[in-house]
């Protein structure tokens, strides 16, 4: 065994300095300003006068090694072998000025979308869905593909009053800032879990399962050595299933998608804030989720037609009032829109000042 190479662990992340393009290494911390050349290209200028061009390309986030190798090939040809990924899963190349045009042409020739910079719709942050997770109420990649096939011009050419961050999470665990997005697509269950009594005992522990429920809907059922669920207290969050495989709640007709609007993470012009419910339920209708695509597109268009420049969706709605948002979008206001969890009352209107519509 002695000759086995000593096992290396705890390396942590490789040193990023090894990967920095020379112009970045030289001007690290010295950048002075940026300019947008177009929706896919921007220029940063350093205090030293050096310039850095960035060309951004969309990726489907779920990428084969073929795709990555293609990016490497392009990086070698146009970006000195350097590239980076953004926090919204786009690739960025760093061409010298002369290579900016040829790089864009090459990317377009290969069918890639150059864009995502400035006031439009960048990539949709999303999650695993039916591709890899056990608790989804919808797919992720499929919905994103269907939505962006409809809205890709806002990535490449069309501008909007301000950035519109769209994110998707396939269940209430919300892997990604769905709860603070301009438009959030959230997978939801609508039926309580089924109790698989026969497997419960060996798959689950009663106390942790009971403790998992935010509304205390689960109580022990000693007779069947499992649990019972008070259906009127269950709001199908799926946390009990996360803890106990014998409480499945995925359901072909019950599951679907809710749409939330008006959240943001940045603090420009006003503090970060959470997304609010706009559409309680749209059906899962693979492969193209037409109802979801139609709804998201409609929201983007009503926003584009009404918001002032630099007003994120949440800022626009707060200016015109939620009454008018439902009027302008034609969306029905239902019981589901009114909060009924712990802090519900904080969201109730405690003033007779509102708009009629």
């Amino acid at each position, binding site marked *: 065994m002695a000759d086995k190479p000593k096992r290396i*662990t705890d390396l942590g992340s490789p040193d990023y300095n090894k990967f920095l393009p020379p112009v970045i290494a030289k001007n690290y911390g010295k950048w002075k300003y940026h300019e947008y050349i177009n929706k896919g290209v921007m220029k940063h200028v350093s205090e030293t006068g050096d310039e850095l061009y960035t060309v951004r390309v969309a990726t489907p986030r779920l990428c084969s090694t073929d795709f990555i190798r293609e990016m490497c090939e392009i990086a070698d040809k146009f970006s000195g072998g350097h590239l980076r990924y953004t926090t919204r899963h786009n690739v960025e190349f760093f061409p010298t000025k002369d290579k900016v045009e040829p790089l864009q042409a090459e990317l377009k020739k290969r069918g890639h979308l150059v864009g995502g910079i400035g006031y439009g719709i960048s990539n949709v942050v999303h999650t695993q869905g039916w591709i890899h997770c056990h608790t989804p109420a919808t797919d992720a990649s499929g919905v994103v593909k269907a939505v962006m096939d409809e809205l890709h011009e806002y990535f490449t050419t069309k501008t909007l009053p301000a950035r519109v961050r769209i994110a998707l999470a396939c269940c209430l665990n919300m892997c*990604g800032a769905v709860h603070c997005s301009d438009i959030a697509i959230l997978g939801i269950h609508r039926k309580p879990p089924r109790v698989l009594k026969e497997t419960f005992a060996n798959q689950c522990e009663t106390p942790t399962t009971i403790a998992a429920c935010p509304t205390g809907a689960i109580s022990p059922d000693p007779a069947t050595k499992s649990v019972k669920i008070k259906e009127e207290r269950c709001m199908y969050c799926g946390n009990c299933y996360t803890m106990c495989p014998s409480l499945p709640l*995925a359901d072909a007709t019950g599951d679907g998608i809710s749409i939330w609007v008006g959240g943001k993470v940045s603090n420009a012009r006003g503090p970060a804030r959470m997304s609010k419910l706009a559409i309680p339920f749209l059906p899962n209708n693979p492969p193209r989720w037409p109802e979801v695509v139609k709804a998201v597109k409609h929201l983007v268009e009503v926003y584009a037609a009404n918001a002032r420049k630099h007003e994120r969706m949440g800022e626009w709605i707060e200016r015109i009032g939620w009454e008018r948002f439902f009027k302008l979008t034609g969306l029905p206001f239902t019981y589901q829109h009114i909060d009924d969890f712990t802090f519900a009352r904080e969201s109730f209107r405690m003033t007779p000042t509102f708009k009629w519509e």
Partner: protein
Amino acid sequence: MSNDRKTPMLDDLEKGKWPSFAKEIKKAAARSDTAKDLLGILERSYKDRVTHWKHGGIVGVLGYGGGVIGRYCDLPEEFPGVAHFHTVRVNPPSGFFYTSQALRDLCDIWDKYGSGLTNTHGSTGDLIFLGTQTDKLEPIFSELTAKGWDLGGSGSCLRTPSSCVGMARCEFANIDSMNICHELTHEFQDELHRPAFPYKFKIKVSACANDCTASVARADLSIIGTWRDNIRIDQAEVKNYAKSKNINIQEEVVDMCPTKCMSWDGSTLKINDKDCNRCMHCINLMPKALRPGKEKGATIMLGGKAPIVTGALMSWVIVPFMKLEKPYTELKELIRKMWEWWDEHGKNRERIGELVDRMGMRAFLEAVGLPPVPQMVKAPRTNPYVFWKAEEVK
């Protein structure tokens, strides 16, 4: 097109302008049965409209408690290639900078041992190898480490920290977010690889309040660059912006300043920095003319998380201003103290934000030695249920 799988719905998703994940799976399927069966089982889910994945079992590599997510499909006979479909999380370089060589190394390893499919990147910030089998995990790990790569975090541990591009390219950066992210990742490798917390702990570093890592929503510890002194104004450049057709300084900058602390008389831009809350809006719009102050540091915020169990949280201000200079000792000490308090009092699966909410901000602040300051609240309490310590009541 894998011949033996009919996937009409996924085929449809190859069409359209947006890059197609379906195409990506098919590219991988040409070389991997795992990917081929992923295609099949995904089509089945499109038909059944439910997931065909089961709970992940405990899988991993020797000496690490995390870094791998176990995944098993519920139709192993029909789709043997995805009977096991684990994912391996690879800790990326800060700022997600790569060279083509580095990426090719990773692709080679992954083509050799896995489905050939990746998530670049996962929402926390790992580069994810999507779909391999248990027996492949050790070989993958050793080839990764041989090339200088390591696994990210999963389970009740410090997850893979991430940062914005910061000083590498952004003129708005007030802290070296990439270096801070790198330093913290290396300082706490043990906490990352050997889960010992009540639950997961995530760190995201954004070098200004634009928060390009969405840290206030997606990180237990949000580190946001800021400055103490005044915004630097280049009046000449302000005039250039005024002359240019594409910005109306009064309406788009001054009128949209949230604290109304700016004034513009057509030739000089004044900012009453005492009233400015460093929201970044004016700087965003006139980067040539306006720059953050020079006395830089970070606002430290705590508690951001998703809704389960007691509702989503956005991080709360716990330190209005902390100078951050290498090796960031003060920040590391604060992190250790909060972990200690969280370890001692946190229930299983109770995030640190939920613990502060349960035990009260006072208990947290006293435990980590931070003073109560007005910046921590939107407004003082309206609720009259005020606790007093016996010794405070003479």
